[in-house]
């Protein structure tokens, strides 16, 4: 079945299959989706590993990400330059972490990156406020926003520095079993 395709060499497909949670067929399908986002930019032949990235604006136009409140942060967290330009490797990485079979630890790492708006490795109050605004379409009053964020930090902060480190976040995730199934985008 894989003999006819000329998009990837067999070694490349094996490498993708080892490094991600996808099968060969899914990787080829992902390449099809990546290509149709920018047909003039993305070559069909990836055997010599071209250095092509797709800008953020095109990626977030995908139907899977279009309505997600965190679409910009998701794409930025997986891009190498931090500005949201995804190469095919980043693209596959992104959907692999967001797939059903990725383990909880990996998902927690990236969820933390997504919610960390100012990229300082802590979820401080401003990060939580931005998260809340994205989740409620800014229809809560500023006092309510502050109250909710303070309550959240109070609950989850274990070491008392009034911001959430990755350890605090991961501790909260382990007590939320639904996280594995909600932090999941099907492609």
């Amino acid at each position, binding site marked *: 079945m894989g003999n006819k395709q000329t998009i990837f060499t067999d070694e490349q497909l094996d490498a993708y299959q080892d490094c991600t949670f996808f*099968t060969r067929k899914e990787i080829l399908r992902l390449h099809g989706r990546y290509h149709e986002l920018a047909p003039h930019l993305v070559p069909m032949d990836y055997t010599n590993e071209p250095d092509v990235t797709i800008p953020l604006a095109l990626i977030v136009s995908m139907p899977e990400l279009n309505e997600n409140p965190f679409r910009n942060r998701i794409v930025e967290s997986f891009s190498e330059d931090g500005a949201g330009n995804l190469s095919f490797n980043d693209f596959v990485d992104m959907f692999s972490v967001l797939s059903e079979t990725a383990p909880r630890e990996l998902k927690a790492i990236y969820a933390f990156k997504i919610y960390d708006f100012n990229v300082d490795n802590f979820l401080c109050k401003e990060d939580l406020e931005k998260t809340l605004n994205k989740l409620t379409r800014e229809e809560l009053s500023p006092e309510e926003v502050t109250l909710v964020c303070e309550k959240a930090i109070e609950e989850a902060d274990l070491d008392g520095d009034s911001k959430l480190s990755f350890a605090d976040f991961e501790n909260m995730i382990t*007590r939320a079993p*639904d996280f594995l199934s909600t932090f999941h985008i099907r492609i």
Partner: protein
Amino acid sequence: MNCFSDCSTTISLVTKQTLELWRGTMKEVGGKFGTGVLSYFKFLKWLLMFNIFSFLVNFGFITIPQLIYHPTPDIPAGVSFKGLEILTGAGYFSHTVMYYGGYSNKTQGTGGRSEYNMQLAYFFTVAAYMVLCGAALIYSMASSFRKKYVLADSGLGGAWQLLCSWDFSVTNEKAVRQRKNNLRIQLKESLSEKVQVALLPLTERLKHYGVFLGTWLLSTGMALGCGTSVYFLCQYDTWEAATLLLPFVVSLINLVVPLFYSLFKKIEHYSNPRMQVYAIIVRNVILKMSILGILCSYWMKDVANTFSCWESIVGQALYRLVIMDFLFIMLGSFFGEFLSNVIGTKCIQSLGVPEFDVARNVLDLIYAQTLAWIGIYFSPLLPVIQIIKFFILFYLKKVSLTQNCQPPRRAGRAAQMQTIFIAILFFPSFLGALSMVAYTVWTLPPSDKCGPFRGLNTTFSAIQIWMDDLNRVDAFQWTVWIYQHVIRSEIFYFLVSLIILVFIYIFRQITQGRQLLITLLRQQIVNVSSGELSGPTCLVHQSWCVRSGCVYVMMLLKCRSNIFS
């Protein structure tokens, strides 16, 4: 170790490639309704795989040899195919390979290589399928428990709502807007909640307990009442015309009585909304299993003694139950979803568009699968009906869902419910079916006029005869030895049970030790951050200590904190 992990990766890759069925539909449903509702469809697909496997195994090992050697079923004169057989399963079908009675007991083929022993084939096919099913269920229950079940309830706090509750798989614009609205409403509710008084006054609590006792007595009483009425109805089942009455009444009870149970919601006040769902689930399971239990005991006691080809009669009764259950699920979909939608939008506006009741629908699926599992021994081709039923049900429920229901308002605890559903599928459902089939195989005498085990004392004697035959051949003495000293001896099972109990005790002690360690380490983090104890050495010492027992850890830390304070 390496080859085992390679093996398991290959198996999971292969299963992922074959499970591409309905990928697009499930993505669409998940995108609009979220992961909670999607879990119903994933469960349905998973059960369908069980039935497809059962069909392949039964058809390949039992039906095809029968069809090769006896291509035309010997139907007595005067019986022809009328359309009614599709509903009743009797008549023309009762002489075909659909039921136990249609299989011969002879060793097929000429002597030498091409012999096919129908008795052993029938027994081992059913046994192998049950064992594999059980293993698959235990494995998924264990892995689901490990990944998704938390023993300490963290509560639906603000941090959880903010950071963990957003469903990333929702892609439909309207659904996303609705979820944002719901989240906002929930956050406002939790902000304005008055702190609940922990201890209600004694009279209030007594009243609550009284109400609980009353509702539980009432629901158990209703279940028992339905069971007795089904039992009395069974006595009339022998009438030709009334064969459809029993399945009709059973399915009607299964449809109507749970609606009564959901009325109790208005009287009872559980402190935790999750307990409410558990209560509904337990009541429904008690009702369905008691009805099935009464039917099974009737079949095994009365039918087995009265009729000549009783296994086929039981198979036909199960066929009718399956078909009637399917018709009633369609009816239930109509009433539960379509009519509620019409009433909610046009007549009583305050009710609104209904939500998809995942718990009730999953319990219906579990009941349907129990029927199929019981029927494997009596009607080898029953999985075909089940496959068709589940296929149609998938599309029916999907259409009903998209037309009539709205996405759920509360972010539910879908993952924990998933574990409970698999546990219910294993404990009452699969084990009940297995024990019924095992009882039939072990103790009940097979009918002597039809079927592969005619003339024997019990079905299991076929194995005894085979072992006696093998005993004469020197090459197979080891199999005979295993049979006599392992499978037939009680000491072996006693020893195995004892060893398992010892292991359970050891693992439980380790778990308790680790939980204690977690509490102590949490305390440690707080202490370290406020600068009281020096961090790394304590943690290293403790992680070494967990292997030697929890009491030692406790003593060590107590000493240490005494030294430093």
